[in-house]
């Protein structure tokens, strides 16, 4: 009964995301090499996104229609790639 009432997934997700944010902050507050910092930032970012997708957005819960899910994820990836590489192209690479 207690298990059903207590939103354990949400609470865990919340704690995970706080911890991951704190780990990312370490990059600013400690002395480390550029590569090391990047490795930490990228990996915490990927884990963070995964935590959000599973704990809060429930990607693993859609039973019937997996296609909509895949279309959505592809659309999201495409839009973010456009944003990132488009910005790099205009602001940094510039040709």
């Amino acid at each position, binding site marked *: 009964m207690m298990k059903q*009432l207590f*939103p354990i997934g*949400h*609470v865990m997700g919340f704690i995970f995301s706080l911890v991951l944010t704190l780990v990312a902050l370490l990059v600013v507050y400690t002395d480390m090499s550029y590569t090391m910092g990047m490795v930490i930032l990228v990996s915490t970012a990927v884990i963070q996104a995964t935590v959000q997708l599973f704990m809060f957005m429930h990607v693993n819960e859609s039973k019937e229609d997996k296609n*909509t899910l895949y279309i959505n994820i592809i*659309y*999201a990836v495409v*839009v973010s790639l*456009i*944003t990132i590489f*488009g*910005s790099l*192209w*205009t*602001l940094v690479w*510039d*040709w």
Partner: protein
Amino acid sequence: MNWDKFIVDGLKHGDPLIIGAVVSIVLVSIAIVAGLTYFKKWGYLWREWLTTVDHKKIGVMYIISALVMLFRGGADGLMLRMQLTAPEMKFLTAQHYNEIFSAHGIIMILFMAMPFIIGIMNVVIPLQIGARDVAFPRLNAVSFWLFFFGAMLYNIAFVVGGAPDAGWTSYFPLASTEFSPGVGNNYYAIALQIAGLGTLMTGVNFIVTILKMRAPGMTLMRMPMFTWSTLITCIIIVFAFPVLTVALALMMFDRLFGSQFFTMTNGGMDMLWANLFWVWGHPEVYIVILPAFGIYSEIISTFSRKNLYGYKSMVASMAIISLLSFLVWVHHFYTMGQGAAVNSFFSITTMLIAVPTGVKIFNWLFTLRKGKIVFTTPMLYSLAFIPIFTLGGVTGVMLAMASADYQYHNTMFLVAHFHYVLIPGTVFAVIAGMYYWFPLIAGFKLNERQGKAAFWTIAISFNVTFLPLFFLGLDGMTRRQYTYSAETGFGPLNLIATIGSVGLMIGFALIVYNIIWSFRHAPRETKGDVWDGAGRTLEWATHIPVPVYNFAVVPEVDRLDAFYFAKKEKRSLFKDKIEKIHMPSNNGQPFILGAIFFFWGFFMVFSMWKSAIVAGIGVLILLAMRTFERDHGFYIPVDEVKKTEQSYGGDSV
């Protein structure tokens, strides 16, 4: 405590406009509180409105807020025009002009156009898909109150502390603490953040509603066009608004905590702000235009007495627009100095958008062709939209050419262009939609004669106001310029534009008069489907005014425009018998959450950290309460449903 920082400069200097504004705000607030107390309406207000989760009431609150903001933004526009009436006018100072065009832009786009559209979505979408509410009614209330309190926070800026003055775009480095040291731009970063979160939740809510709650038999390709446009709009919201969220958060860090994302030193990059702003900003203009296209599609088809021409191509063109809208943002800063390849690419993608948009224009024209056109007020707005918007679109293609844009960039030509798309596109559409769907909520139509008078005043004044700006822009008058000399020769055209803007305000006032008059005198409708039985979609299949539960029995749909064909073949869409109806219960938490966010934002604006932390904890407590709360709503028993149905005349189900 140092109270000085809360007092705006205008008050200290005894500026009559600011004193007038402060006095009127205080008087109006006192009048509202006194009125509510005198008429004993506090309980009514709390029970029926502030705690409501009913999509219709939330929609009405969105629309009322948007109308109020239309007047605030319109008054700002009028003041800008006053200042430009003649050379060397002394009505506003340069600083004041900056504050007002910033407020005007933000308020019109984020606190008028967006909420008006979201309000209409709220009222109409569940009805159009045969549902009893949105998927997450409680979240819907949270969305509204976050928008509302975000807007309030922005609106107090010009009387408490100082107004944002770096344009609605707030470009860095101008918006940095170095060049804008006051609290004004803190308001921008935080008020927009709060309202933006609300919008994002609306996006999620309506996607789920449309995907999961359609009446049995309504496949995606049987959905009304307004529902389609809302679905696509919400997808754009969900992908575009997080960019704004992040950009505003970075702005807040730069302004409040000394980070260096958008500075010109220490590895910061000022144009990164412009870039992120427009990655959100361009999709944003499609967020306010696509639902407008949906509204026009419904109205044009209803009042041509024909089905919408090219349904599939309408859907396809919206889907293409939604993807292209993420591929064009650089056209807002062609002149930054990036290479020719970048500009050529974004030039081409921008021009490509004209193709699906053109397809839609032709579809509307073909819908009109050989139709039995009925010239109601909403139809007049829709008919005026087609040529005026086309003018706005064609000048848009002119601006899309990167090399030519070096001439047009930041001139009055641009100002004319975006008013030519935003006003006939969005503003005409929401007004038309309001006239068209008004009976659903109120139970009567707005007076047609007054409505048409308002329409003609607005349509004519609009062109008088903004057509001259194209020529002023081509002659070299720049935007955001607070004065000009007589030698420039800008005087006469500016005078004409100002005269037009007075006409526009008269037109908007006529609409309000129209609403108030109709509340008292318009004849009440007795059955649904009020537009002479021409309704094609499900919102016309239920009673008017729509009961809390929308449909006593959930309709069943077997084709596009099912309601229209059911009427023609004398069938009923309602097959089941009445059962008890499950409804969500009202709750005060969304309102309280919004109010706490307001205080949190206020404390952040003034860097009052301890108070901000307390308010932040308040937000967390409310979120936790929601997480652990169990509320399964309630049931309306069969008897009560039957009684309500009978009170409408009792024939339909």
